[in-house]
Every structure is written in C-alpha cells, then in structure tokens.
C-alpha cells in the first residue's frame, strides 16, 4: 500500500486516545468532557479502520460505523443532561456532582 504502514496509523490512534483521556480526566466542564470523549471514540475508530485495511475485510469498518452511531446517541443524551442541569440553575462542574460520596 502506498504511504505509511499501518503501524503509523495505530500510533496516531494511540496518541489521540491518550489526549482524549487527559481531557476527560482533567477538565471540569461537562461539555468539554463530552468533547474529549468524542476524541477517544474517534481514535478507536481510526484504529478499527486501519485494522480493516490491514486484513482486507469490512468488519472493522462496520464496527466503526456502529461506533459512530452509538457515539451520536450518547452525545444526544449527554447534551440533554447538560441542558437539564443548566435549566435547574446548577453549577456545570463535574466536581460538584457528589451525591454519591460515601
């Protein structure tokens, strides 16, 4: 195949995944956390596509499509939550949702 080998795609995917992880763990705004979550999902999509190309089968791509659909649904629900929270005049801060504190 022309261009870089699959290894490179995978490395890009790995770095993107860790960037997304950092974003999820370090940001306090739920909106940004959702965005970071999207990055993670996309990173895994990239990995799936690369493996599909490697093996010459469509399974990876189908899987990536499903992931996309699920990610979209999850974004819908997540944004709905954020809007509901803001409608109740609560602080949009991940650290302040501590009802589960034991």
């Amino acid at each position: 195949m022309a261009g870089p080998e699959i290894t490179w795609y995978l490395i890009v995917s790995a770095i993107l995944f860790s960037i997304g992880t950092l974003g999820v763990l370090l940001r306090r705004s739920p909106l940004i956390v959702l965005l970071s979550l999207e990055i993670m999902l996309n990173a895994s999509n990239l990995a799936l596509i690369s493996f599909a190309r490697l093996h010459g089968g469509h399974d990876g791509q189908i899987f990536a499509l499903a992931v996309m659909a699920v990610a979209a649904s999850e974004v819908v629900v997540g944004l709905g939550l954020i809007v509901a929270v803001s409608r109740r005049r609560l602080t949009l801060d991940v650290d302040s949702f501590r009802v589960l504190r034991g």
Partner: protein
Amino acid sequence: MIQGAWLCLFAPLAGAFAITVMGDSITRRTAGWISTLSVFVAFAGAVVSFVGLLGESPGEREHLSTAWTWLSTGSFKIGMTLLVDPLSVLMMLIVTGVGGLIVLYSIGYMDGDPEERRYFAYMSFFVFSMLMLVQAGNFLLLLVGWGLVGLASYLLIGFWHERAEAVAAAKKAFIMNAAGDATMALAFFVLIWQTGTLEFAEAFVGAEGMSSTLLNLVALGLLGGAVAKSAQIPLHTWLPDAMEGPTPVSALIHAATMVTAGVYLIVRAHPLFELAPSIQDLAAGLGALTLLVAGFIALVQTDIKRVIAYSTMSQIGYMFLGVGLGAYGNGMFHLMTHAFFKALLFMAAGLVIHHLAGEQDIRRMGGVRRVMPKTFVAFLVGSLALVGIPPLSGFFSKDAILASALASGGYGQLLFAAGLLGTLLTGLYTFRLFFVVFLGRPSELVLQHAQGSHGRPEEEDASRTHGKTAHGETASHGEGPWTMTVPVAVLTVLAVIGGWLQIPDVWHPFGDWLHDVAEPLVEPSVTQDLVASALAVGLGLVGVGVAWLFYGARSRELPRVAGVRHALEHKLYFDELYDLVFYRPAVWMAGVWRRTIEEPLIGGSITGVSLGARRAGGVLGETQTGYLRSYALAIAAAAAVLVVVFLAVQ
C-alpha cells in the same frame, strides 16, 4: 472398728448435707440438733475405734482402710484411705468429743440468729474436714482436709458477713493459711519427686535416701503449713482477728481443734522432721518465741476474747516447743488438756458475753461474780488449769513439756528458760483478765443485765454489739440455757481430771498409747520433772500474785513504760510490717499490671479490634469520593493495568 472410723468421718458430712438440703423446711433449732447429733454419732464411731484398738496389742495398732483408688497416674497412686492408729483415734476423740459439746453449746448461744441453719451446716462441715485431716491415710488426703478446714474457718469467721471487720478477718485468715498451704504443697511435690509416693509409711522410708538439703526443704515446707495453721510467728496475725467469729467458733476452731492441726502434722510426719533436725529445732524455737510474744501482747488486750486468743497462741507455742524437741507424747498431751480448758474458757467467756448482750470489752465489765457465780467457778477452774496449778490438767501437761525441754541439752535449756518466763506471763495475763472481769464491784453494764432476763440490746449498745450475739426471748434464767451450761460443766470436770491420765513416773497410759506411733526423742528424769514442776508452779503463782496486786486488790498503780505499752498494744507492729512488705507491693504491682497489660493489651485489644474495624471501614469509605473524575481515573488506571496483564500473559 474400721466401720467406726468411716462412720466417724462421714456422719458430720451427712449432717451438714442434710441441713443444707432441707433448708427452710426445718426450724433453726432442728438444724442445731441435727448438727449436734451428727457430731455425737461421730464421737460414738471414734469410741468404737478406740475400743477396738485397745483390744489389740501395741505393735498392731495401725490399720489402713482404702475405699477406692482416687488418683492413679503411672506408678503414683493415691487412695481414699483412712488410717486408724492411736494418734488418729486420739485426735478423733478430741475433735468429736469437744466439738460435740461446743456444737451443743451453740444451740443456746446462736439461738435467735436468723442464719442459724447456715451456721450449723458450717459447723458440721468443719468437723468433717477436721476428721478428714486427722484420719487421712496419706499426705494428699491430709492436704485435702487441711484445705477444707481452712475453708470452714473462713466461712465461720466471716459468718456475720454484714460486718466488714468479720469479712476482712476471714480473708486475712484464709490468705495467711494459703501461704502455708503453698509451702506444704511444695514439700509434697519434692516428696513425690524423690520418693514417688505420698503414703505415710513408704514416704518415710523413701525419705531416708534423700539429700539433706531436700529433706530440709520438705520439713521446712511442712513447718510452714503448720506455722500458718497454728498461728505461730511469723504467720500468726490472723488469729486475734479471727475472734470476729461467733464465740463457739473461736472455742472449737481457734482453740481446740484447727489450730492444733499444725502440732498433729509435726507428730504425724515426725520421721521427716527427725531427718531434718535443724528444722525441728527451728519449730521448737518458733514455739518458744511465739509463747513469749503472745504472752506479752496478751497483757494489754482489752477484749476478753482476744486475751484468750493470745493465750491460745502462747499455749500452742508450748506444744510446738514440745514436739520440736521430740517430746511427742507430751506435746499431744498438752494438746488434749489445752482443748479442754481453752474451750472451757472460751465458752465461759461466751456465757459472760451472752449475758451482757454482746459486750466484749473488759473495761466495761467488773464484778460479774455476783451476777454469774457458776460461770465464775468455771472460769476460775479454766484459768487455774491454764496457769498450770496442780492438781488441774494444765499442770501435768505443761510441766511435762518443760521437763522435756530441760532434758534436751543446751538448746533445750534455753527454751526451758523461755517456757518458764512464759508461765509467769500466763499467770499474769490470765488472772489479770479474771480479776478485772469477775472481782470487784459490779460495773454499770453488769448491773443493767443483772436480772438474767435477756431482752433486746438497749440503744447505745445496739449499734456496737449488733450481730455479735443472738438474742432470743429465752425462758431460762440464771446464766444461760442448759444447752450452754451443761457443756461448760462437762468441760470443767474434764479440765480438772484430764491431766490425771499422765502422772510422770507413776503411771503414763497416755505416753504408752502414743509410744508406737511417735517415739519420743527425750525422756526427762524424775529430778528434771520435779525441778521443772516446782519452778513452773512457783512462777505461775508469782504471776497470779502480781496480777492480784495490780488488778485484784487495786492496791498499786500499773507501771507506765510508755513505749513498751504502745508497742504491745499494736501487737508488736506485725500487722503494719506485713502491710508494708506484702500488701502494698502486691497492690502496687496489681495496679502496674492493670495499667500496662490489662488495659492496653487485653482491654485495648478488644476495643482495638472494634476501632480498627471502624477505621478500616472509614478508610475504605474514603474511596467513595463522589468525584466523577476520580472514578474515571480509576477506570483509566485499571485499563492501563489490564493492558500490562494482557501483554504479560501473551
């Protein structure tokens, strides 16, 4: 004959058991009669054994009867064995005879006490324990009887348990006796180790092979037990306090029987003591020391029972002196006569106390003779016997011991001198007591109670004397009910004639009776007998005379030697010394251990477990932070770890 011995042993136990089981369903009086009858039945059994032994020739008078094997481990066997021999039968007769009279006396003395049944159960139990002690066929059963006697003494001293002094006295007696029990047990351990047996005969034979150090240790251990039980120095401080118990208890346990158990032990184990002569000499020395110290202290006592208690201590000192020098027969003879006149003295004192509604302070008494003439006679007889005036019993027995001391070489003669001084003191303190209580003009207190009808104690006496005597509405007048006066009369007669069983060189059935069991080491000559007797009687009379001067005619003032009087009143500070040396360190140590071990380790470990569990729970609870981000971090970290695991497993 053997059946007689078994009957003797178990009749009092059956009596105690019956009283306990029947409880409230019998009247208090009935309990008293059950107890008395059980002891008299025991006396009958003892007489049967005695007669049986009489019929045999002297060499054959030893019978061991084993009911069953009690303990058997390896080659060491102990049976439930009774020994019927002259010594044990002698003790059986004394214990059940005098004991029976005293229990009879108690029916009158304790009349009206709400817990009379308990008292009589304890008395029967005591008689059983003492009989177990003297009839034991091996050392282990003797130790069992020893311990049970200590228990009975504790129960009876603390009979009026609402009184704190009685409880304290009971504990003191028990703890001091426990020290003696411990030394005895140690001696028995050594015996078992060296000879492999605790039967009398085999142990004595086996002991001849032991090293002298071990023999000394064994003898010392036995002596320790004897000293504790017989209230000799240094384990003597419990006996005066034991007077907190009812007077019949003092008469029976602390005059006639239990405190003589030490003397019996030495005579029974005399082969062991003869193999450790230095310990035997020590016993004699302790006896001499005690008889002097007790005599001195008795001079300043103001409680009628305490004077008699110190007198007991002193007389047992004489017995120890006797058996310590090897005069076993004479020592036991004094034991018997002492049982008679000392019990008599206690019981007569009890009549006085009973009549005066519980008063025991002699300073409040006086002129009791006018009110209680029969008691006066009884007390006089007892006192004369105690001092050793012929022809009363004490004369024969005490002088026999003194003669033996005179015949025992240099050391013996030193002790003889001490014994003579003792007779002077005996005369002095005994007749001090007698003159103060009985002669002179009747004191107020005596006049109050002069009519002879016993009502409830009056106001100010009530608080002081409550619980000391029992008072009922007795129909009898005079000096007491017949249950009290008859035993006193019997003992009076015995105190007079009891000594006539052994007149030196004229006839000595008593000495012959015990000869095969315990051959005396020393036989005084006629001259020594006469010299000893003359000196003893003379000094005794001197003592009586001095007492008359100060207390009888009241013609002279008492010499005031302040420091001495103070020391004597404090009983030579033995109690304070023991408190300092034993009690305070023990309490301090207990406190230290409580602080360093009990509370932190044992108490702390329990609370520590609960606290630790709580804290662990708390720590674990910290993981539930509620932080979304920390949960996410946990997931990420777990994922990282899992990747490593997968890579490693690959």
